[in-house]
């Protein structure tokens, strides 16, 4: 069992203030969490009050966390021409590692701060945003758990298994490869769900859309009841348009783990990867 490492970003921020006072608009902080040979794949947990989270993949083994606290569009100069000094409360970036689990938080309550996290290809993610930011992940393989309150969740070219929710934003996911044994779940109250899956993926699907249409490129073989009506769709939305009371179950490619799609006010699109 390794001891947790606490990396304080405050020093980095102080250094930036001393040596680069010109950077009044934005004060990025950067923390590198080096790879430790002892562990398996990394798990990254990040949560933000204000702002968005972007996760990118790189070929290296380090996890790099960059936070930028914006000055919220306040002018760099006062009305009579005086330069505003950014006192830089910073983003309050706080990064901890314990046994290959990396916890990332920011303590900034009012300033909007955006996180950019660069990770090795095989990394599991647990991401949470509350206000004003989107969650964007590109090219990562692992278990991805993404939760947003007011912004979008977009996962591009990810593999593994996904659990994604946004209350008011859309959930847009494209999966290159899926873990054939694990259930997945996509949900939103007010947004759309748009999920692209490999042509041969198998699932038992549960689809619930109270006030919107459901489109699918896959043939969904209906389960017991209620009986949905499948109509021809169109080129833009998908091969099939599925109508049903407000929820249905069925199988795709013969059935497999459970995939749940839930939206109250939005539409659902289940696309086949071309």
């Amino acid at each position, binding site marked *: 069992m390794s001891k947790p490492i606490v990396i304080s970003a405050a020093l980095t921020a102080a250094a930036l203030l001393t040596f680069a006072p010109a950077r009044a608009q934005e004060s990025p902080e950067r923390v590198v969490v080096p790879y430790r040979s002892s562990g398996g794949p990394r798990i990254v947990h990040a949560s933000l009050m204000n702002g968005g989270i972007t996760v990118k993949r790189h070929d290296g083994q380090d996890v790099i966390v960059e936070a930028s606290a914006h000055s919220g569009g306040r002018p760099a100069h006062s009305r009579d021409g005086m330069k505003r000094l950014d006192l830089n409360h910073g983003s309050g970036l706080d990064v901890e590692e314990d046994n290959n689990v990396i916890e990332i938080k920011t303590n900034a309550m009012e300033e909007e701060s955006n996180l950019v996290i660069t990770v090795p290809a095989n990394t599991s993610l647990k991401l949470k945003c509350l206000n004003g930011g989107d969650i964007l992940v590109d090219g990562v393989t692992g278990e991805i758990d993404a939760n947003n309150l007011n912004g979008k969740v977009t996962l591009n070219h990810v593999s593994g298994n996904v*659990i994604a929710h946004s209350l008011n934003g859309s959930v847009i996911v494209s999966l290159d490869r899926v873990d*054939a*044994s694990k*259930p997945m*779940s996509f949900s939103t109250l*007010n947004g759309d769900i748009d999920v692209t899956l490999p042509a041969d993926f*198998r699932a038992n699907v549960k689809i619930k859309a109270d006030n919107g249409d459901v489109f699918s490129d896959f043939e969904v073989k209906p389960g017991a009841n209620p009986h949905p009506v499948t109509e021809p769709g169109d080129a833009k939305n998908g091969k099939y348009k599925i109508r049903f009371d407000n929820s249905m179950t069925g199988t795709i490619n013969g*059935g*497999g*783990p459970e995939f749940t799609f839930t939206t109250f006010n939005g539409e659902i699109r289940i696309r086949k990867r071309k």
Partner: protein
Amino acid sequence: MTCEQIRIGMAEYLAGRMSAGDRAAFLGHVDHCEACAAEVEEFTALWRDLDDLPLPMPSTRMLPRFRAMLHAYERSSRPSNLAMMPSRPWMWGALAASLFVGGLLAGHYLGRNSAANTEIASLKTEVEGMRQMVTLTLLQQQSAGERLRGVTWSNRMERPDSAVENALLTAVNRDPNVNVRLSAVDALQKFTANPAVRRALVDAIPVQDSPLVQIALIDAIVPLGDASAGSMLRQLAADPHANEAVRKRANWGLRKLGVA
């Protein structure tokens, strides 16, 4: 082999204990049956993962029974089979189940006496017990993906017990992940014959911080036609702090129940 025989032979197959002939018959069926292929795939992955999962000991009740069964088996049968005894105590349950399923097969193919039939009946209970253990173990994992898996495992049980009911209700009320909560509400729909579960689903609505889960709870309760949910729904429909979609759904529920 039939689909039923595939299901029965699953544990044997996974443990690599099938005879070459049975194995060929097993794979012959699976090659042509999509449903069985999907089940084999899921079981294979679970089998592989079981050893990596920490055991939170929900099975304090189950484990001694499995152990006892294992010892009984040890005394009575081919000792060579025990060479592949797993290191983790958790695996004993799975192994025990597979041994019993092995007993089932023996009963089927070798035409054992009536004692074997009694054993078969108890075996079925034990396999069901194993499913419960898997569900309870998964529901206590750190990863939302594993907990979601636990919820969906509960759907496979024919007659889930109160431990599973409670674990699912706890998930509805306390799981940090919205999607796990949603699935738990869905899984609990098959328990709503139990008035205590119906009550618990109604009580979960006001403490729920996710509007989407609140709507799922309303949708689970209203079709049961239980007018006692009315006062809760009326409260919700009038609550200015409740999400707009939730208020609308509560009004819909009141109309459906005929108590608007």
